[in-house]
């Protein structure tokens, strides 16, 4: 097919010169956390990780929700979990949230919380040499001091390698 394809690319010089309208949207939200996440975040403030058990499939759901998506029933049997877990997967990020380059990498990881049958949540690793992180590594939560906790996921500063290691 020999066709002229439409589209007019701009090089960086022309891009700077091209007319633009600038606009910063004012989009502000104050989300209701709802029953389940409210209690989860309140637990974090108290220095506890809470899960919820589905009476039908018997999974321990963490992060908790008001209903089991598998069985489609309401769930309300709260369970307190340990603040230890296993690294399910991790990354070593030299980009910050806005994709700026950073020297000291961020260490996001999915942590399977002990006692939750492999379920867990996204958090960060700390007090660890990035080269030594392994999938399957045992970790423990490092909490902010009680007075600084405000009912937020960041009430846990990060997870660090647990004593006893891998």
């Amino acid at each position, binding site marked *: 097919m020999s066709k002229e394809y439409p589209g007019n690319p701009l090089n960086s010089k022309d891009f700077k010169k091209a007319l633009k*309208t600038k606009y910063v949207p*004012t*989009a502000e*939200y104050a989300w*209701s956390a*709802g029953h389940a996440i409210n209690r989860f975040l309140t637990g974090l403030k108290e220095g506890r990780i809470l899960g919820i058990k589905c009476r039908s499939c018997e999974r321990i759901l963490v992060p908790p929700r008001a209903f089991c998506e598998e069985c489609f029933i309401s769930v309300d049997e709260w369970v307190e979990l340990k603040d230890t877990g296993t690294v399910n997967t991790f990354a070593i990020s030299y980009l910050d949230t806005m994709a700026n380059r950073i020297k000291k990498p961020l260490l996001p990881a999915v942590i399977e919380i002990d006692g939750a049958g492999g379920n867990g949540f996204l958090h960060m690793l700390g007090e660890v040499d990035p080269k030594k992180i392994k999938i399957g590594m045992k970790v423990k939560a490092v909490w902010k001091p009680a007075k600084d906790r405000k009912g937020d996921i960041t009430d846990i500063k990060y997870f660090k390698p647990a004593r006893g290691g891998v």
Partner: protein
Amino acid sequence: MEKVAIIGVGFTGARPDSPELSYKELMYEAAVKAYEDSNVDPRKEIGSFIGASEDFWDGVSIFDEYLPDQIGGALRPVCSICNEGLHALATGVMHIRAGIADIVAVEAHSKVSDVVNPEGIMHFALDPILDRTLDYNAHVMAGLEMNRYLHEACVTKEECAEVVVKNRANALLNPYAPYGAKLCIDDVLDSTPTYEPLSELDTSNLVDGACVIVLASEKVARNKRAPVWINGVGWCNDTPNVGLRDWGYPRYVRLAAEQAYADAGITNPYDEIDIAEVDDSYSYKELQHLEALRLVDTGEAAGFLCEGAFDINGELPVNASGGSLGMGNLLDTNGLVKTFEAVEQLRGMAGQRQVKEAESALVQSWRGVPTTSGAVMILGNEPSGGD
């Protein structure tokens, strides 16, 4: 074409605020009610789940991510349609007619109380190059349109105020509607001018709520209690360009209606339709829409209204639910809420606001400013229609 029916409906009711529930929990409540009503197990029987949503109303990019769990759709065919709830219902009809599924769930919700600055979101919908920099509030579009409609159709502000009085009175009879009130015309005319000729009480208030509707193929619906048949659907867009659109007459509603009437085999809408739930997110819109739907001739809606034809006990009850003026405005959920009302009426379960001998209903929605997007659906207790 295969006939499709509504076999279950679930609605949370409308509320100005719902701080105790997350949007997921709100949607879950509507879904549970709809599946209970239709006696369907969503994890086993539903073949397609469709949600109508817009990212900036929900405050997430890609709302589809947050859609499946609370409507029973995890690891199932789920999709988002960024249109009005009625467009999503039309999509469900197409899924059934195309053989994708025998049972389809359609969801829409508003958790607008989570949005700190809804006006800012509405402004973000204006054309980024031509309109946004003029720095007007998006509601101005409705003021412009109302002015042109009053001029073209020879309608007065008083007559538009009658719409508000009727709908807010109807809402008093509807337990789902928070804005029931006994008003007089002067209450409306004396309310604060906002975007003239609009006054405060001419405009519906943004509210929270979720609605789920369950659709089924004819084969499945025949074995269900009280199916309500979708005899016709239509939807249409005019131009998004504010310089080119017809400000007095909503052509998109007219074209959507013609598609739905052809589907349903309707030639004389006024005689063949028993009740109508039409968009009234601003007072004048109800009159303008009734005319574009050919339920009455252009310029005649106000006369019918003032004679009481659109009252609950009139010849063609319009917005017996209270409409958006009485229910509140649930954004893209309005069409499903109006469908919910039509189903309650056709099933004879509308309580104090029950219309006598309602056998067929028309539902119409509009996506609000600055859009020219509308949809129409014809419902009946019996299947009917063309080919």
